[in-house]
Protein backbone atom coordinates (compact mmCIF):
# COMPACT_ATOMS: atom_id res chain seq x y z
CA UNK A 1 0.00 0.00 0.00
CA UNK A 2 1.43 3.33 -1.00
CA UNK A 3 1.30 5.97 1.66
CA UNK A 4 -1.56 8.31 0.91
CA UNK A 5 -0.98 12.02 0.85
CA UNK A 6 -4.05 12.67 2.93
CA UNK A 7 -4.78 11.09 6.30
CA UNK A 8 -8.40 12.20 6.14
CA UNK A 9 -10.28 13.16 3.03
CA UNK A 10 -13.98 13.82 2.76
CA UNK A 11 -16.05 14.86 -0.19
CA UNK A 12 -19.49 16.32 0.17
CA UNK A 13 -19.82 14.78 3.62
CA UNK A 14 -23.28 15.53 4.97
CA UNK A 15 -25.09 14.43 8.10
CA UNK A 16 -28.67 15.43 8.63
CA UNK A 17 -30.67 14.93 11.80
CA UNK A 18 -34.19 15.29 10.59
CA UNK A 19 -34.26 18.47 8.51
CA UNK A 20 -31.21 19.99 10.12
CA UNK A 21 -27.85 19.44 8.48
CA UNK A 22 -25.35 19.18 11.32
CA UNK A 23 -22.60 18.69 8.76
CA UNK A 24 -23.34 20.20 5.41
CA UNK A 25 -21.30 18.95 2.47
CA UNK A 26 -17.80 19.43 3.78
CA UNK A 27 -14.62 18.61 1.86
CA UNK A 28 -11.86 18.12 4.40
CA UNK A 29 -8.29 17.38 3.38
CA UNK A 30 -5.93 16.54 6.22
CA UNK A 31 -2.37 16.01 4.94
CA UNK A 32 -0.34 13.16 6.37
CA UNK A 33 2.08 14.38 8.98
CA UNK A 34 0.17 17.57 9.74
CA UNK A 35 -1.08 18.75 13.08
CA UNK A 36 -4.50 19.75 11.93
CA UNK A 37 -6.57 22.14 13.98
CA UNK A 38 -10.30 21.73 13.52
CA UNK A 39 -11.76 25.00 14.68
CA UNK A 40 -15.28 26.11 15.17
CA UNK A 41 -17.65 27.45 17.78
CA UNK A 42 -19.67 25.02 19.91
CA UNK A 43 -22.36 23.37 17.83
CA UNK A 44 -20.66 24.01 14.51
CA UNK A 45 -20.57 20.30 13.62
CA UNK A 46 -17.04 19.39 14.70
CA UNK A 47 -17.98 16.46 16.90
CA UNK A 48 -20.55 15.16 14.44
CA UNK A 49 -17.86 15.21 11.76
CA UNK A 50 -15.51 13.27 14.00
CA UNK A 51 -18.23 10.69 14.81
CA UNK A 52 -18.91 10.19 11.12
CA UNK A 53 -15.18 9.89 10.40
CA UNK A 54 -14.90 7.12 12.99
CA UNK A 55 -17.98 5.26 11.79
CA UNK A 56 -20.06 5.94 14.89
CA UNK A 57 -22.83 7.56 12.92
CA UNK A 58 -23.91 7.08 9.35
CA UNK A 59 -23.32 9.84 6.83
CA UNK A 60 -26.41 11.04 5.02
CA UNK A 61 -24.41 11.80 1.90
CA UNK A 62 -20.88 11.98 0.66
CA UNK A 63 -17.88 9.76 1.00
CA UNK A 64 -14.77 9.81 3.13
CA UNK A 65 -11.44 8.16 3.40
CA UNK A 66 -9.26 7.65 6.41
CA UNK A 67 -5.60 6.73 5.91
CA UNK A 68 -6.35 6.25 2.24
CA UNK A 69 -9.05 3.65 2.80
CA UNK A 70 -12.71 4.11 2.03
CA UNK A 71 -14.84 4.31 5.15
CA UNK A 72 -16.84 2.94 6.80
CA UNK A 73 -16.22 -0.30 4.92
CA UNK A 74 -12.56 -0.45 5.90
CA UNK A 75 -13.21 0.46 9.54
CA UNK A 76 -11.98 -2.87 10.82
CA UNK A 77 -8.62 -2.43 9.12
CA UNK A 78 -8.22 1.30 9.54
CA UNK A 79 -9.41 2.04 13.06
CA UNK A 80 -6.69 0.05 14.86
CA UNK A 81 -4.26 2.62 13.46
CA UNK A 82 -6.39 5.49 14.70
CA UNK A 83 -6.33 6.66 18.28
CA UNK A 84 -9.29 8.73 19.31
CA UNK A 85 -10.56 10.88 22.11
CA UNK A 86 -14.17 11.72 21.41
CA UNK A 87 -16.21 14.22 23.40
CA UNK A 88 -14.42 13.56 26.62
CA UNK A 89 -13.15 10.36 28.15
CA UNK A 90 -15.45 7.54 29.25
CA UNK A 91 -14.59 4.67 31.53
CA UNK A 92 -16.08 2.03 33.79
CA UNK A 93 -15.93 3.72 37.19
CA UNK A 94 -15.85 0.42 39.06
CA UNK A 95 -12.65 -0.68 37.31
CA UNK A 96 -9.16 0.65 37.93
CA UNK A 97 -7.42 2.71 35.31
CA UNK A 98 -5.34 -0.27 34.31
CA UNK A 99 -8.34 -2.62 34.18
CA UNK A 100 -10.11 -0.13 31.94
CA UNK A 101 -7.21 -0.09 29.52
CA UNK A 102 -7.09 -3.90 29.52
CA UNK A 103 -10.79 -4.05 28.80
CA UNK A 104 -10.58 -1.67 25.86
CA UNK A 105 -7.44 -3.24 24.45
CA UNK A 106 -9.06 -6.68 24.60
CA UNK A 107 -12.14 -5.40 22.77
CA UNK A 108 -10.26 -4.87 19.52
CA UNK A 109 -9.82 -7.33 16.70
CA UNK A 110 -6.05 -7.10 17.05
CA UNK A 111 -5.75 -7.66 20.79
CA UNK A 112 -2.18 -8.75 21.36
CA UNK A 113 -2.12 -10.20 24.81
CA UNK A 114 1.60 -10.81 24.94
CA UNK A 115 2.52 -7.15 24.64
CA UNK A 116 -0.51 -5.76 26.43
CA UNK A 117 1.07 -5.29 29.82
CA UNK A 118 4.07 -3.46 28.42
CA UNK A 119 1.97 -1.27 26.16
CA UNK A 120 -0.33 -0.31 29.00
CA UNK A 121 2.61 0.53 31.26
CA UNK A 122 4.16 2.68 28.55
CA UNK A 123 0.93 4.52 27.81
CA UNK A 124 0.27 5.17 31.50
CA UNK A 125 3.81 6.47 31.96
CA UNK A 126 3.46 8.72 28.95
CA UNK A 127 0.42 10.50 30.36
CA UNK A 128 1.81 10.47 33.90
CA UNK A 129 -0.77 8.15 35.48
CA UNK A 130 1.52 5.31 36.60
CA UNK A 131 1.04 6.23 40.25
CA UNK A 132 -2.76 5.93 40.18
CA UNK A 133 -3.05 3.11 37.65
CA UNK A 134 -4.51 0.72 40.23
CA UNK A 135 -7.01 3.14 41.66
CA UNK A 136 -10.63 2.88 40.61
CA UNK A 137 -11.54 5.41 37.95
CA UNK A 138 -14.41 6.46 40.21
CA UNK A 139 -11.78 8.27 42.27
CA UNK A 140 -10.15 10.05 39.30
CA UNK A 141 -10.46 13.76 38.73
CA UNK A 142 -11.66 14.92 35.35
CA UNK A 143 -8.15 15.80 34.30
CA UNK A 144 -6.95 12.33 35.28
CA UNK A 145 -9.70 10.77 33.22
CA UNK A 146 -8.70 12.95 30.30
CA UNK A 147 -5.15 11.66 30.65
CA UNK A 148 -6.39 8.09 30.87
CA UNK A 149 -8.34 8.72 27.69
CA UNK A 150 -5.14 9.85 26.03
CA UNK A 151 -3.38 6.76 27.38
CA UNK A 152 -6.06 4.68 25.69
CA UNK A 153 -5.44 6.47 22.41
CA UNK A 154 -1.74 5.71 22.81
CA UNK A 155 -2.06 1.99 23.57
CA UNK A 156 -0.81 1.22 20.11
CA UNK A 157 1.44 3.09 17.73
CA UNK A 158 -1.02 5.12 15.70
CA UNK A 159 -0.80 6.71 12.31
CA UNK A 160 -3.61 9.09 13.08
CA UNK A 161 -4.81 10.61 16.31
CA UNK A 162 -8.21 12.21 16.40
CA UNK A 163 -8.43 14.31 19.54
CA UNK A 164 -11.67 16.06 20.32
CA UNK A 165 -11.01 18.95 22.74
CA UNK A 166 -8.12 17.17 24.47
CA UNK A 167 -7.31 19.95 26.91
CA UNK A 168 -10.89 20.38 28.01
CA UNK A 169 -11.07 20.51 31.79
CA UNK A 170 -7.32 20.40 32.32
CA UNK A 171 -5.27 22.70 34.46
CA UNK A 172 -2.63 24.93 32.79
CA UNK A 173 0.07 22.43 33.72
CA UNK A 174 -1.88 19.59 32.09
CA UNK A 175 -2.68 21.72 29.07
CA UNK A 176 1.00 22.35 28.53
CA UNK A 177 1.77 18.65 28.89
CA UNK A 178 -0.86 17.77 26.31
CA UNK A 179 0.55 20.36 24.00
CA UNK A 180 4.03 18.88 24.35
CA UNK A 181 2.69 15.39 23.95
CA UNK A 182 0.92 16.36 20.75
CA UNK A 183 4.10 17.86 19.40
CA UNK A 184 6.00 14.72 20.35
CA UNK A 185 3.50 12.50 18.59
CA UNK A 186 3.62 14.64 15.49
CA UNK A 187 7.39 14.50 15.58
CA UNK A 188 7.16 10.72 15.66
CA UNK A 189 5.29 10.89 12.40
CA UNK A 190 1.65 10.64 13.43
CA UNK A 191 -0.95 12.87 11.92
CA UNK A 192 -2.86 14.70 14.63
CA UNK A 193 -6.39 15.90 13.99
CA UNK A 194 -7.25 18.18 16.86
CA UNK A 195 -10.62 19.75 17.32
CA UNK A 196 -10.89 22.78 19.50
CA UNK A 197 -12.72 25.95 20.09
CA UNK A 198 -9.62 27.53 21.60
CA UNK A 199 -7.73 29.61 19.04
CA UNK A 200 -4.63 30.01 21.11
CA UNK A 201 -4.24 26.28 21.48
CA UNK A 202 -4.55 25.67 17.76
CA UNK A 203 -2.32 28.57 16.89
CA UNK A 204 0.44 27.26 19.11
CA UNK A 205 0.69 23.70 17.91
CA UNK A 206 -1.05 23.33 14.56
CA UNK A 207 0.45 23.42 11.12
CA UNK A 208 -2.92 23.35 9.40
CA UNK A 209 -6.34 24.68 10.29
CA UNK A 210 -9.90 24.23 9.14
CA UNK A 211 -12.75 26.39 10.33
CA UNK A 212 -16.30 25.11 10.72
CA UNK A 213 -19.41 27.14 11.26
CA UNK A 214 -23.05 26.04 11.11
CA UNK A 215 -22.09 22.72 9.62
CA UNK A 216 -20.12 24.26 6.76
CA UNK A 217 -16.39 24.23 6.23
CA UNK A 218 -15.49 27.90 5.83
CA UNK A 219 -11.78 27.60 5.18
CA UNK A 220 -8.87 25.23 5.46
CA UNK A 221 -5.19 25.24 4.75
CA UNK A 222 -1.90 26.00 6.44
CA UNK A 223 -2.00 28.72 9.04
CA UNK A 224 -0.12 31.06 6.68
CA UNK A 225 -2.58 30.43 3.86
CA UNK A 226 -5.49 31.11 6.10
CA UNK A 227 -4.02 34.31 7.40
CA UNK A 228 -3.36 35.47 3.86
CA UNK A 229 -6.91 34.66 2.88
CA UNK A 230 -8.13 36.77 5.76
CA UNK A 231 -6.76 39.81 3.90
CA UNK A 232 -3.70 41.94 4.66
CA UNK A 233 -4.54 45.52 5.51
CA UNK A 234 -2.82 48.76 4.78
CA UNK A 235 -2.40 51.17 7.65
CA UNK A 236 -1.49 54.75 6.93
CA UNK A 237 -0.70 57.48 9.46
CA UNK A 238 -1.06 60.86 7.83
CA UNK A 239 -1.77 64.52 8.42
CA UNK A 240 -4.56 64.50 5.86
CA UNK A 241 -6.59 61.41 6.38
CA UNK A 242 -9.49 62.48 4.20
CA UNK A 243 -7.29 63.03 1.18
CA UNK A 244 -5.42 59.82 1.78
CA UNK A 245 -8.69 57.90 1.89
CA UNK A 246 -9.78 59.52 -1.34
CA UNK A 247 -6.63 58.51 -3.13
CA UNK A 248 -6.68 54.96 -1.79
CA UNK A 249 -10.27 54.59 -2.87
CA UNK A 250 -9.35 55.73 -6.36
CA UNK A 251 -6.67 53.08 -6.38
CA UNK A 252 -9.37 50.47 -5.73
CA UNK A 253 -8.78 49.56 -2.07
CA UNK A 254 -11.87 48.47 -0.22
CA UNK A 255 -13.16 48.73 3.35
CA UNK A 256 -11.73 52.11 4.00
CA UNK A 257 -11.99 53.39 7.52
CA UNK A 258 -10.76 56.71 8.80
CA UNK A 259 -10.01 57.21 12.45
CA UNK A 260 -8.39 60.55 13.22
CA UNK A 261 -5.02 60.48 11.52
CA UNK A 262 -5.22 56.75 10.69
CA UNK A 263 -6.58 55.23 7.52
CA UNK A 264 -7.20 51.48 7.23
CA UNK A 265 -7.97 49.65 4.02
CA UNK A 266 -7.80 46.13 2.62
CA UNK A 267 -4.90 45.69 0.29
CA UNK A 268 -6.49 42.99 -1.86
CA UNK A 269 -3.36 42.32 -3.86
CA UNK A 270 -2.19 45.91 -4.19
CA UNK A 271 1.40 46.44 -3.32
CA UNK A 272 1.96 48.75 -0.33
CA UNK A 273 4.88 50.50 -2.09
CA UNK A 274 2.59 51.46 -5.02
CA UNK A 275 0.09 52.91 -2.58
CA UNK A 276 2.82 54.87 -0.85
CA UNK A 277 4.06 56.35 -4.14
CA UNK A 278 0.56 57.47 -5.14
CA UNK A 279 -0.05 59.06 -1.74
CA UNK A 280 3.22 60.97 -1.75
CA UNK A 281 2.73 62.10 -5.34
CA UNK A 282 -0.69 63.42 -4.42
CA UNK A 283 0.92 65.46 -1.66
CA UNK A 284 -0.27 63.50 1.30
CA UNK A 285 2.11 63.63 4.22
CA UNK A 286 2.69 60.05 5.08
CA UNK A 287 4.01 59.60 8.60
CA UNK A 288 4.07 55.87 8.44
CA UNK A 289 2.71 53.20 6.17
CA UNK A 290 2.54 49.52 6.91
CA UNK A 291 0.95 46.28 5.72
CA UNK A 292 -0.75 44.49 8.62
CA UNK A 293 -1.04 40.68 8.60
CA UNK A 294 -4.14 39.50 10.48
CA UNK A 295 -3.88 37.19 13.52
CA UNK A 296 -5.62 33.85 13.38
CA UNK A 297 -8.20 35.29 15.70
CA UNK A 298 -8.99 38.04 13.26
CA UNK A 299 -9.42 35.44 10.58
CA UNK A 300 -11.56 33.28 12.82
CA UNK A 301 -13.82 36.15 13.78
CA UNK A 302 -14.01 37.29 10.21
CA UNK A 303 -15.15 33.83 9.20
CA UNK A 304 -17.49 32.90 12.03
CA UNK A 305 -18.67 36.24 13.27
CA UNK A 306 -18.28 37.89 16.64
CA UNK A 307 -19.71 36.77 19.91
CA UNK A 308 -19.92 33.81 22.16
CA UNK A 309 -23.32 32.68 21.09
CA UNK A 310 -23.61 29.00 20.40
CA UNK A 311 -24.32 28.88 16.71
CA UNK A 312 -27.52 26.95 17.24
Amino acid at each position, binding site marked *: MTTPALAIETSGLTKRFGDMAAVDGIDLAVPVGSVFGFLGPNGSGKTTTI*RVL*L*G*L*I*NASEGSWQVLGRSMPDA*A*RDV*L*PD*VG*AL*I*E*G*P*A*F*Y*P*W*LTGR*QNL*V*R*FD*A*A*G*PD*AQRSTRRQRIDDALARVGLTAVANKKVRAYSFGMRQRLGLA*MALLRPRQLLILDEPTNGMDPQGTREIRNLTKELAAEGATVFLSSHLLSEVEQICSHVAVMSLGKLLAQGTIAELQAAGGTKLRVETDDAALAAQILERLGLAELTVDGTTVLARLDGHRPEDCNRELVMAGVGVRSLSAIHPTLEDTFVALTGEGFDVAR
Partner: protein
Amino acid sequence: MLLAELATLFRRLRVKVLLGVLAAIPAALALAVYLSGGPSSGRGPTFLDQVSHNGMFAALAGLTVAIPFFLPLVVAVVSGDAIAGEANLGTLRYLLTRPSGRTRLLATKAATVAVFCLAATVAVALGGLIAGVILFPIGKVVTLSGTTISLLEGIARTFAAAGIVAASLLGLASIGLFVSTLTDAPVGAMAATAGFAVLSAVLDNVPQTRAIHPWLFTHHWLAFGDLLRSPVRWTDIVADLRLQLGYIAVFATMAWARFSTKDVLA
Protein backbone atom coordinates in the same frame (compact mmCIF):
# COMPACT_ATOMS: atom_id res chain seq x y z
CA MET B 1 -12.89 -10.14 24.38
CA LEU B 2 -15.49 -12.31 26.09
CA LEU B 3 -13.21 -12.77 29.07
CA ALA B 4 -12.62 -9.03 29.38
CA GLU B 5 -16.34 -8.46 29.04
CA LEU B 6 -17.13 -11.02 31.75
CA ALA B 7 -14.48 -9.53 34.02
CA THR B 8 -16.03 -6.10 33.52
CA LEU B 9 -19.48 -7.44 34.38
CA PHE B 10 -18.61 -9.52 37.40
CA ARG B 11 -16.31 -6.91 38.92
CA ARG B 12 -19.27 -4.60 39.18
CA LEU B 13 -20.61 -4.15 42.68
CA ARG B 14 -24.20 -4.17 41.49
CA VAL B 15 -23.75 -7.57 39.87
CA LYS B 16 -22.03 -9.00 42.92
CA VAL B 17 -24.86 -7.81 45.14
CA LEU B 18 -27.50 -9.28 42.84
CA LEU B 19 -25.78 -12.66 42.83
CA GLY B 20 -25.41 -12.51 46.58
CA VAL B 21 -29.08 -11.78 47.08
CA LEU B 22 -29.97 -14.62 44.73
CA ALA B 23 -27.86 -17.01 46.78
CA ALA B 24 -29.43 -15.66 49.96
CA ILE B 25 -33.00 -16.44 48.83
CA PRO B 26 -32.86 -20.22 49.31
CA ALA B 27 -30.63 -19.76 52.35
CA ALA B 28 -33.28 -17.54 53.92
CA LEU B 29 -35.97 -20.08 53.06
CA ALA B 30 -33.96 -22.86 54.64
CA LEU B 31 -33.29 -20.77 57.72
CA ALA B 32 -36.98 -19.94 58.07
CA VAL B 33 -37.85 -23.63 57.87
CA TYR B 34 -35.12 -24.40 60.39
CA LEU B 35 -36.27 -21.78 62.87
CA SER B 36 -39.96 -22.62 62.57
CA GLY B 37 -39.36 -26.33 62.80
CA GLY B 38 -40.56 -26.96 59.28
CA PRO B 39 -43.82 -26.08 57.56
CA SER B 40 -46.62 -28.55 57.72
CA SER B 41 -46.64 -30.95 54.84
CA GLY B 42 -48.23 -29.71 51.68
CA ARG B 43 -47.98 -26.07 52.66
CA GLY B 44 -45.85 -23.37 51.17
CA PRO B 45 -44.02 -23.48 47.88
CA THR B 46 -43.37 -26.84 46.32
CA PHE B 47 -40.18 -28.53 47.49
CA LEU B 48 -40.11 -26.38 50.63
CA ASP B 49 -42.03 -28.98 52.62
CA GLN B 50 -39.23 -31.42 51.84
CA VAL B 51 -36.43 -29.18 53.05
CA SER B 52 -36.55 -30.39 56.64
CA HIS B 53 -36.31 -34.01 55.46
CA ASN B 54 -33.58 -33.34 52.95
CA GLY B 55 -31.61 -30.10 52.92
CA MET B 56 -30.90 -30.50 49.22
CA PHE B 57 -34.46 -29.41 48.47
CA ALA B 58 -33.59 -25.88 49.61
CA ALA B 59 -31.91 -25.41 46.23
CA LEU B 60 -35.04 -26.46 44.34
CA ALA B 61 -37.31 -24.48 46.62
CA GLY B 62 -35.05 -21.47 45.98
CA LEU B 63 -35.39 -21.87 42.21
CA THR B 64 -39.16 -22.21 42.54
CA VAL B 65 -39.40 -19.06 44.61
CA ALA B 66 -36.94 -17.02 42.55
CA ILE B 67 -38.20 -17.76 39.06
CA PRO B 68 -41.49 -15.88 39.06
CA PHE B 69 -40.05 -12.57 40.13
CA PHE B 70 -36.51 -12.14 41.28
CA LEU B 71 -34.65 -14.01 38.56
CA PRO B 72 -36.46 -12.21 35.73
CA LEU B 73 -35.86 -8.91 37.48
CA VAL B 74 -32.16 -9.57 37.78
CA VAL B 75 -31.92 -10.71 34.18
CA ALA B 76 -33.81 -7.59 33.10
CA VAL B 77 -31.30 -5.44 34.97
CA VAL B 78 -28.28 -7.04 33.37
CA SER B 79 -29.64 -7.49 29.84
CA GLY B 80 -31.25 -4.06 29.75
CA ASP B 81 -27.94 -2.56 30.78
CA ALA B 82 -25.93 -4.46 28.17
CA ILE B 83 -25.81 -1.83 25.42
CA ALA B 84 -27.70 1.07 26.98
CA GLY B 85 -25.33 1.01 29.96
CA GLU B 86 -22.29 1.34 27.71
CA ALA B 87 -24.00 4.14 25.84
CA ASN B 88 -24.80 5.83 29.12
CA LEU B 89 -21.21 5.63 30.34
CA GLY B 90 -19.93 6.73 26.95
CA THR B 91 -17.75 3.67 26.74
CA LEU B 92 -19.75 2.45 23.77
CA ARG B 93 -18.08 4.97 21.45
CA TYR B 94 -14.65 3.86 22.58
CA LEU B 95 -15.49 0.19 22.17
CA LEU B 96 -16.80 0.83 18.67
CA THR B 97 -13.81 2.93 17.59
CA ARG B 98 -11.40 0.41 19.08
CA PRO B 99 -12.94 -1.10 16.80
CA SER B 100 -14.68 -4.05 18.35
CA GLY B 101 -17.15 -4.38 15.48
CA ARG B 102 -20.82 -3.92 16.14
CA THR B 103 -21.94 -7.45 15.41
CA ARG B 104 -19.03 -8.84 17.39
CA LEU B 105 -19.74 -6.56 20.35
CA LEU B 106 -23.42 -7.52 20.33
CA ALA B 107 -22.55 -11.22 20.17
CA THR B 108 -20.16 -10.81 23.08
CA LYS B 109 -22.82 -8.99 25.06
CA ALA B 110 -25.34 -11.73 24.31
CA ALA B 111 -22.89 -14.40 25.44
CA THR B 112 -22.11 -12.44 28.59
CA VAL B 113 -25.79 -12.07 29.45
CA ALA B 114 -26.26 -15.82 28.87
CA VAL B 115 -23.35 -16.59 31.19
CA PHE B 116 -24.89 -14.28 33.75
CA CYS B 117 -28.23 -16.11 33.52
CA LEU B 118 -26.43 -19.33 34.32
CA ALA B 119 -24.44 -17.69 37.11
CA ALA B 120 -27.69 -16.36 38.59
CA THR B 121 -29.47 -19.71 38.69
CA VAL B 122 -26.37 -21.54 39.87
CA ALA B 123 -26.05 -18.95 42.65
CA VAL B 124 -29.57 -19.85 43.77
CA ALA B 125 -28.87 -23.58 43.60
CA LEU B 126 -25.54 -23.26 45.37
CA GLY B 127 -26.91 -20.98 48.06
CA GLY B 128 -29.71 -23.45 48.71
CA LEU B 129 -27.45 -26.45 48.69
CA ILE B 130 -24.95 -24.94 51.11
CA ALA B 131 -27.63 -23.69 53.50
CA GLY B 132 -29.49 -27.00 53.26
CA VAL B 133 -26.39 -29.04 53.99
CA ILE B 134 -25.55 -26.88 56.99
CA LEU B 135 -29.02 -26.82 58.54
CA PHE B 136 -30.59 -30.15 57.63
CA PRO B 137 -29.76 -33.79 57.06
CA ILE B 138 -29.29 -34.78 53.48
CA GLY B 139 -29.85 -38.12 51.87
CA LYS B 140 -31.65 -39.93 49.11
CA VAL B 141 -33.95 -37.78 47.06
CA VAL B 142 -37.64 -38.51 46.56
CA THR B 143 -38.81 -37.45 43.11
CA LEU B 144 -42.16 -35.93 42.30
CA SER B 145 -43.21 -39.35 41.04
CA GLY B 146 -42.57 -40.89 44.44
CA THR B 147 -39.46 -42.79 43.42
CA THR B 148 -36.13 -42.48 45.16
CA ILE B 149 -32.85 -41.51 43.54
CA SER B 150 -29.38 -41.19 45.02
CA LEU B 151 -28.25 -37.92 46.56
CA LEU B 152 -25.60 -37.50 43.90
CA GLU B 153 -28.15 -37.89 41.14
CA GLY B 154 -30.46 -35.55 43.00
CA ILE B 155 -27.77 -32.88 43.13
CA ALA B 156 -26.90 -33.46 39.48
CA ARG B 157 -30.56 -33.06 38.55
CA THR B 158 -30.80 -29.92 40.67
CA PHE B 159 -27.95 -28.29 38.80
CA ALA B 160 -29.42 -29.50 35.53
CA ALA B 161 -32.62 -27.78 36.65
CA ALA B 162 -30.61 -24.61 37.31
CA GLY B 163 -29.32 -24.93 33.76
CA ILE B 164 -32.84 -25.32 32.39
CA VAL B 165 -34.00 -22.28 34.36
CA ALA B 166 -31.05 -20.31 32.99
CA ALA B 167 -32.01 -21.36 29.47
CA SER B 168 -35.63 -20.44 30.21
CA LEU B 169 -34.49 -16.91 30.97
CA LEU B 170 -32.69 -16.48 27.64
CA GLY B 171 -35.84 -15.42 25.83
CA LEU B 172 -36.29 -12.58 28.29
CA ALA B 173 -32.57 -11.81 28.08
CA SER B 174 -32.74 -11.41 24.31
CA ILE B 175 -35.72 -9.09 24.65
CA GLY B 176 -33.65 -7.11 27.15
CA LEU B 177 -30.73 -6.98 24.75
CA PHE B 178 -32.96 -5.66 21.98
CA VAL B 179 -34.58 -3.04 24.21
CA SER B 180 -31.09 -2.09 25.32
CA THR B 181 -30.14 -1.18 21.75
CA LEU B 182 -33.10 1.20 21.51
CA THR B 183 -32.10 3.66 24.18
CA ASP B 184 -29.18 5.32 25.92
CA ALA B 185 -30.97 5.17 29.28
CA PRO B 186 -30.20 1.84 30.96
CA VAL B 187 -32.87 2.26 33.64
CA GLY B 188 -35.51 2.62 30.96
CA ALA B 189 -34.32 -0.51 29.21
CA MET B 190 -34.29 -2.46 32.48
CA ALA B 191 -37.78 -1.30 33.41
CA ALA B 192 -39.14 -2.08 29.96
CA THR B 193 -37.62 -5.56 30.03
CA ALA B 194 -38.97 -6.29 33.50
CA GLY B 195 -42.30 -4.98 32.22
CA PHE B 196 -42.27 -7.54 29.44
CA ALA B 197 -41.68 -10.31 31.98
CA VAL B 198 -44.59 -9.11 34.12
CA LEU B 199 -46.84 -8.74 31.08
CA SER B 200 -46.06 -12.25 29.92
CA ALA B 201 -46.66 -13.70 33.38
CA VAL B 202 -49.97 -11.87 33.73
CA LEU B 203 -51.19 -12.92 30.30
CA ASP B 204 -50.20 -16.46 31.15
CA ASN B 205 -52.55 -16.37 34.13
CA VAL B 206 -55.53 -14.93 32.33
CA PRO B 207 -57.73 -17.69 30.90
CA GLN B 208 -59.12 -15.39 28.20
CA THR B 209 -55.72 -15.36 26.50
CA ARG B 210 -55.38 -19.12 26.56
CA ALA B 211 -54.79 -19.23 22.83
CA ILE B 212 -51.47 -17.42 23.16
CA HIS B 213 -50.31 -19.08 26.36
CA PRO B 214 -48.00 -21.56 24.65
CA TRP B 215 -46.30 -18.61 22.96
CA LEU B 216 -45.51 -16.69 26.12
CA PHE B 217 -41.89 -16.93 27.17
CA THR B 218 -42.88 -17.35 30.81
CA HIS B 219 -45.27 -20.20 30.05
CA HIS B 220 -42.88 -23.07 30.70
CA TRP B 221 -40.83 -21.43 33.45
CA LEU B 222 -41.72 -24.17 35.92
CA ALA B 223 -40.86 -26.96 33.48
CA PHE B 224 -37.53 -27.44 35.25
CA GLY B 225 -39.47 -29.43 37.88
CA ASP B 226 -40.03 -32.12 35.28
CA LEU B 227 -36.40 -33.10 35.80
CA LEU B 228 -37.42 -34.27 39.25
CA ARG B 229 -39.89 -36.83 37.92
CA SER B 230 -39.17 -40.39 37.08
CA PRO B 231 -38.99 -40.97 34.30
CA VAL B 232 -37.93 -37.41 33.51
CA ARG B 233 -40.67 -35.76 31.51
CA TRP B 234 -39.09 -33.94 28.60
CA THR B 235 -42.17 -32.65 26.73
CA ASP B 236 -42.44 -29.29 28.47
CA ILE B 237 -38.71 -28.81 28.82
CA VAL B 238 -38.24 -29.34 25.10
CA ALA B 239 -41.20 -27.05 24.38
CA ASP B 240 -39.60 -24.46 26.68
CA LEU B 241 -36.19 -24.65 25.04
CA ARG B 242 -37.74 -24.43 21.58
CA LEU B 243 -39.76 -21.42 22.60
CA GLN B 244 -36.73 -19.69 24.09
CA LEU B 245 -34.78 -20.46 20.93
CA GLY B 246 -37.53 -18.80 18.93
CA TYR B 247 -37.45 -15.68 21.11
CA ILE B 248 -33.66 -15.58 20.91
CA ALA B 249 -33.71 -15.89 17.12
CA VAL B 250 -36.25 -13.11 16.66
CA PHE B 251 -35.02 -10.64 19.26
CA ALA B 252 -31.31 -11.22 18.74
CA THR B 253 -31.68 -10.51 15.04
CA MET B 254 -33.81 -7.48 15.84
CA ALA B 255 -31.11 -6.29 18.21
CA TRP B 256 -28.57 -6.86 15.47
CA ALA B 257 -30.61 -5.04 12.82
CA ARG B 258 -30.98 -2.12 15.19
CA PHE B 259 -27.53 -1.98 16.72
CA SER B 260 -25.53 -2.57 13.56
CA THR B 261 -27.15 0.42 11.89
CA LYS B 262 -27.82 2.87 14.66
CA ASP B 263 -26.18 6.24 15.09
CA VAL B 264 -24.12 6.18 18.26
CA LEU B 265 -24.50 9.65 19.66
CA ALA B 266 -23.75 8.92 23.28
